[in-house]
């Protein structure tokens, strides 16, 4: 269910006017040779966190990969399994060389010559942009002895999960598997692997190439957000950390609850975000998370429970179906949540939450549980109203009957 994509110019990563190599080099120069220690210093100083959703410190991941063995791999995840996320697509279209510079610097520092790029099957324009960019830098990369391998991830929510990506690169099915060690220790071919999201590598490259880093000293850098607009269009914006949400979102978008971090994310009830900024630490302290940067404002007068019910049903259908609790538990949870919207008991939802949470090879059941738990936390009045057979959400405070088809 995707409409158009609108990428707004940004202060740092999205600052460039044109995606070609010549203008990229003119604007940012050429990265010099960097060692693992150089990269650790840069990533550590800026407290760079992964942008794929987990927000793990990049320096720790890089150090683990460097120390876990001598044959190492670098994997760039551009697949964006989450349908509402478009920031990596935006990067591929607008600044592919920034992503490639970051991945190339990491690969050179880790002394691995082959870099794996994982592309989304359902967004062929991303693959085309990446291929065009690789073609432009063929001579430079040959000199640097860098070789790129392209892989195409299946269009499924869980295809972008780290273990599913490693499976794909290793030539097996693009599905999550149980892992007993982190990817940084045992990833591709069971060897140390630096697997990160495309934006993370772009942030790394920007830190290497640009002297002036936006954002406050305690949380330097920017963040790419995919904001779903009411029209169905997604706008991708780049905002420095510490920017007020009132600057990021329009008043109409702040007039209702906002789903932060996408379909595996958490709800910020109406009025919460006004007091906060785009800051990992601040959002976590408020019980929220930015995930991979997906922001879905519900707008005023729409029922968040009905919306959640639809998302949970969609997510249940996205299970790979290989883990029993996910295969059976997530559709049951979706059914229980739909029943809740129609006046059913919240206890059934809570019981199923406990049976889904933490029980799978990947984070899919956890993510669904997080969304559902956050919905119950954020909207106690709505839950109570639906329990009484009514929907409390109405324009101007009117109470209107629960109407799933009528809500957004």
């Amino acid at each position, binding site marked *: 269910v995707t409409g158009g994509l609108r990428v707004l110019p940004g202060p740092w990563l999205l600052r460039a006017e044109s995606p070609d190599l010549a203008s990229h080099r003119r604007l940012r120069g050429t990265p010099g040779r960097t060692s693992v220690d150089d990269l650790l210093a840069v990533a550590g100083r800026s407290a760079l966190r*992964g942008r*794929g*959703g*987990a927000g*793990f410190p990049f320096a*720790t*991941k890089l150090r*683990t990969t460097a120390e876990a063995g001598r044959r190492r791999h670098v994997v760039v*995840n551009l*697949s*964006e*399994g*989450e349908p509402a996320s478009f920031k990596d697509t935006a990067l591929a279209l607008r600044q592919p060389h920034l992503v490639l510079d970051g991945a190339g610097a990491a690969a050179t520092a880790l002394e691995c010559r082959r870099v794996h790029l994982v592309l989304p099957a359902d967004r062929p324009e991303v693959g085309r942009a990446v291929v065009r960019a690789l073609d432009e830098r063929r001579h430079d990369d040959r000199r640097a002895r860098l070789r790129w391998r392209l892989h195409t991830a299946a269009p499924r929510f869980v295809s*972008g*999960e*780290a*273990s599913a*990506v*490693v499976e794909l690169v290793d030539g097996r099915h693009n*599905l*999550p*598997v*149980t*892992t*007993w*060690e*982190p*990817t*940084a*220790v045992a*990833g591709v071919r069971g060897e140390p692997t630096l*697997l*990160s*999201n495309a934006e993370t590598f772009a942030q790394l490259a920007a830190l290497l190439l640009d002297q002036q880093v936006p954002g406050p000293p305690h949380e330097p850098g920017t963040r790419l957000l995919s904001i779903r607009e009411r029209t169905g269009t997604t706008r991708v914006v780049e905002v420095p950390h510490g920017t007020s949400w009132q600057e990021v979102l329009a008043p109409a978008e702040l007039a209702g609850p906002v789903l932060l971090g996408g379909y595996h994310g958490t709800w910020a009830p109406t009025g919460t975000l006004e007091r906060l900024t785009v800051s990992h630490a601040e959002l976590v302290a408020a019980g929220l998370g930015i995930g*991979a940067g997906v922001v879905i404002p519900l707008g005023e007068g729409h029922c968040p429970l009905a919306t959640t019910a639809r998302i949970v049903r969609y997510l249940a259908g996205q299970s790979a179906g*290989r*883990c*029993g*609790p*996910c295969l*059976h*538990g997530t559709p049951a949870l979706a059914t229980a949540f739909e029943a809740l919207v129609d006046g059913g008991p919240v206890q059934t939802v809570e019981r199923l939450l406990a*049976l889904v949470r933490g*029980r*799978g*090879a*990947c*984070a899919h059941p*956890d*993510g669904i549980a997080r969304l559902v738990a956050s919905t119950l936390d954020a909207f106690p009045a709505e839950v109570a109203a639906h329990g009484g057979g009514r929907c409390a959400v109405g324009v101007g405070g009117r109470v209107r009957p629960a109407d799933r088809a009528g809500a957004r």
Partner: protein
Amino acid sequence: VSGRREVPADLRVDWPRCAGRGLCHELLPEAIDLDPWGYPLVTAPVDRRLRRAAREAVRSCPLQALRLVDRPAPPEISRRTLR
């Protein structure tokens, strides 16, 4: 090695492998319950008292879908939530 055995361990299920045969629950009801669909629900860590029975449950799983993982739980990095 003997010192290691004092440390509590956790039972971890290899979910894509597990088919819900339920043998682990039969052998180790103190730490493994079954969910409504017949899949194991780990209810307790494995202390010294349960070690032997837990090993037996791990060995007996027909699909080798159960593991005993020593604490402290391994990775600071979780590869599960990356995307």
